[in-house]
């Protein structure tokens, strides 16, 4: 990944954008962090947070006109947080944080005119930066227009203390009379605070440039202007702070404005979803009020995705980790598992106000890992071998229509594997309604290769399919699986496609009875952008009179079943969590219309039925598993297209018996019946195995990249499998 591409990805994630309150504050006070500290009664910490962005917080904290509060989005949920009130409470209940550190003297001086808040702030900021500051004001204590505020709101003592502190920071009182007389002097500058009535006439406020705070006279800066003809304490303070920054730049001889966009901006791109925020009315007690703050952030995608949540960050951080993972030359690629665990379902992209797609990022990263030969070899191997099996002559093949082939039914590898009986019924039904003009194409579309980052293998599969379609005069593909649809849509957009559901709806449904129970309808993630697929299914259910429940996360925002993107290969625990979260969304049993959704969601405590099981009922089957699916594909092919030309394998006829417990272990360990039979065949032929005192045997065989171990007992003409395990390391006796 190039740096620019990474920046593009990072830029889309808005999690690090400032909260609405902070963006609206011209001083950029982090009101979110401030509220968090107040809610925990950490008043001194809250004061520090205020003072970090707010000079002279002892003054402004009492009188701030809090634009932050107007920006608070809780106005839509019970009422904005009274941040102004909280600031005042904080000032009253916390210790003064003391004088800030002062930089070493710069030996340059600035004359500050006026005793208003803008002048005091400007003097404070410049003194901090090491300038010699002289302040010109009348009367005992400074304050300008602040002196007219009621004592209760702003005690005079606070202003007097502020001046004492400024003096302790090196500021001196001066009595220069005309700030505008004389030309600019080297190492000198002047600030005029228009918020002090005594000096407001010296410069016309309209002549002040409110970005750099320059006046037409070089070296003279001004601020403290009213906004919309109103005085605003926070803007007076901001003027002083920003003008001090300009004066510093002026005296250092650098651009007054460049790189200050964030300082001037009052915008944020943050998006905080409020759909699960409970409205609470404002509270009198400041701590209780601060507790109402929802600590605005986005994390919309993270909250709704077990994968994004698992890694405890958010897409911007993940993009950086993935970039680092691809850039690392030596050391551990610690983000491999994360990259391979995304289900590529696309929910984050739909939820994100900026369309950040983890799927695009992870797909890209997986392809890069394959190209650079750093993809862990074990992670997708079984899925790729399974795809190879589905496309081998034992499982794949084509049968033309009896008369012509106007349409070609492509059930996909998983439907045939999971529900061969229903698939056969569909074929018969299509033959009937199309009057012998539909063909049948068995095989896998290549989706597992796409998900595994293996574009080479995907291209190979697609090329074969393309050739078959061309040889049949490009018939319309009837698809039962929305993942196949996604592959064809993306890589063969010109191929004519339709969904099995659309065909059944248009050409006629089989006669069947609806399930009496209400079922929660689960849209597969690959129908997220296929409204017609989803609509056809709903229409079928309505025609059949099948009661169904719409889940909150449906249609465009549906959730993955844990099979997508080969998530279950990279992280079985995560895939299980994804399933259980999905099932918790409803009390009802589930209805799926993708074979893998049905398979993945099954076996976790809820009945999951596939639409074809209602349309073409047959005895209910639970999860099939890898081995059974492969056997189903082979026998389906033999039944509907005819036996393949390859001779049977010598171990095909071995009979094995596997208990339910052992079967579960085999599935989890990705050990297929064909691996077991081959290992047993080899042990029987060679006579090499281990034997225990109770006559249990242990055989081993290297098949491809894996060494399999099978523990078994001999039974009458069959092998009872006791246990099996595997490893990828190769062992050799050391000489």
């Amino acid at each position, binding site marked *: 990944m190039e740096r620019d591409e990474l920046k593009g990805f990072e830029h889309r994630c808005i999690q690090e954008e400032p909260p609405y309150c902070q963006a609206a504050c011209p001083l950029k006070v982090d009101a979110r962090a401030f509220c968090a500290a107040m809610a925990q009664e950490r008043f001194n910490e809250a004061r520090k947070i205020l003072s970090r962005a707010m000079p002279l917080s002892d003054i402004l904290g009492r009188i701030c006109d809090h634009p932050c509060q107007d920006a608070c989005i809780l106005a839509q949920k019970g009422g904005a947080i009274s941040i102004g009130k909280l600031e005042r409470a904080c000032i009253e209940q916390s210790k003064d944080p003391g004088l800030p550190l002062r930089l070493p003297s710069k030996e340059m001086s600035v004359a500050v005119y006026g005793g208003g808040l803008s002048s005091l702030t400007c003097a404070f900021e410049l003194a901090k930066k090491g300038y010699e500051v002289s302040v010109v004001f009348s009367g005992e204590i400074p304050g300008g227009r602040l002196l007219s505020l009621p004592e209760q709101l702003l005690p005079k003592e606070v202003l007097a203390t502020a001046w004492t502190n400024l003096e302790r920071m090196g500021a001196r009182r001066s009595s220069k009379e005309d700030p505008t007389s004389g030309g600019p002097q080297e190492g000198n500058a002047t600030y005029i605070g228009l918020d002090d009535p005594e000096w407001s006439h010296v410069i016309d406020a309209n002549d002040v440039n409110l970005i750099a705070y320059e006046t037409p006279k070089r070296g003279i800066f001004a601020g403290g202007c009213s906004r919309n003809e109103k005085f605003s304490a926070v803007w007076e303070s901001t003027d002083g702070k920003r003008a001090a920054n300009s004066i510093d730049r002026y005296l250092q001889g650098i651009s007054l404005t460049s790189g200050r966009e964030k300082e001037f901006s009052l915008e944020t791109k943050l998006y905080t979803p409020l759909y699960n925020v409970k409205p609470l009315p404002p509270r009198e007690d400041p701590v209780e009020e601060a507790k109402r703050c929802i600590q605005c952030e986005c994390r919309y995608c993270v909250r709704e995705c077990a994968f994004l949540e698992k890694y405890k960050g958010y897409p911007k951080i993940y993009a950086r980790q993935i970039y680092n993972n691809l850039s690392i030359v030596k050391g551990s690629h610690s983000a491999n598992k994360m990259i391979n665990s995304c289900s590529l379902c696309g929910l984050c992209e739909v939820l994100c106000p900026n369309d950040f797609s983890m799927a695009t990022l992870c797909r890209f990263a997986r392809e890069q890992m394959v190209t650079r030969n750093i993809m862990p070899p074990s992670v997708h191997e079984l899925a790729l071998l399974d795809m190879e099996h589905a496309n081998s002559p034992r499982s794949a093949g084509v049968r033309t229509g009896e008369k012509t082939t106007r349409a070609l039914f492509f059930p996909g590898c998983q439907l045939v594997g999971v529900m061969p009986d229903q698939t056969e019924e569909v074929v018969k039904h299509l033959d009937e309604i199309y009057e012998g003009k539909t063909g049948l194409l068995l095989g896998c579309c290549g989706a597992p290769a796409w998900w595994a980052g293996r574009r080479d293998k995907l291209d190979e599969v697609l090329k074969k399919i393309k050739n078959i379609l061309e040889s049949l005069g490009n018939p319309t593909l009837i698809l039962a699986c929305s993942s196949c649809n996604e592959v064809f849509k993306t890589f063969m957009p010109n191929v004519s496609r339709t969904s099995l559901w659309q065909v059944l709806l248009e050409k006629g449904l089989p006669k069947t009875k609806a399930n009496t129970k209400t079922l929660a309808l689960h849209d597969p993630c690959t129908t997220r952008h296929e409204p017609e697929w989803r609509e056809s299914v709903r229409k079928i259910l309505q025609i059949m009179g099948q009661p169904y429940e719409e889940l909150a996360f449906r249609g465009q925002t549906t959730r993955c079943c844990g099979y997508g993107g080969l998530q279950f290969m990279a992280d079985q625990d995560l895939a299980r969590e994804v399933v259980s979260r999905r099932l918790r969304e409803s009390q009802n049993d589930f209805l799926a219309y993708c074979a893998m959704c049905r398979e993945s969601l099954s076996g976790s405590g809820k009945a999951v039925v596939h639409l074809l099981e209602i349309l073409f009922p047959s005895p209910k089957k639970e999860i099939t598993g890898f081995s059974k699916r492969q056997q189903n594909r082979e026998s389906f092919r033999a039944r509907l297209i005819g036996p393949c030309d390859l001779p049977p394998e010598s171990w095909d006829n071995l009979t094995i018996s596997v208990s339910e417990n052992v079967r579960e272990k085999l599935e989890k360990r990705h050990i297929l019946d064909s691996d077991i039979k081959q290992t047993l065949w080899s042990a029987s032929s060679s006579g090499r195995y281990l034997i*225990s005192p109770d006559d249990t045997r242990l055989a081993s065989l290297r098949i491809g990249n894996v060494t399999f171990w099978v523990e078994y007992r001999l039974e009458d003409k069959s092998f009872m499998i006791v246990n099996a395990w595997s490893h990828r390391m190769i062992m050799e006796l050391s000489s």
Partner: protein
Amino acid sequence: MSKETDINFHEETNWRCSCGGELTLHKVAAHYLGNRFEIELPACSQCGFILVPESLAVGKMLEVEKILEDK
């Protein structure tokens, strides 16, 4: 060998080899992705059949395979 890739195995085993030999601890080389480790495993003293016990294969060995795959 670093601690994270230490996959030695010293459990007692009841297995004996179909050739009639006893299983005793042998020095064995484990290879994966261009890496080589010397470890001790039970192997037949006559024909050299090496046993990789389940606990090792699905435990430490799997862990080390994953570490090496991420290197």
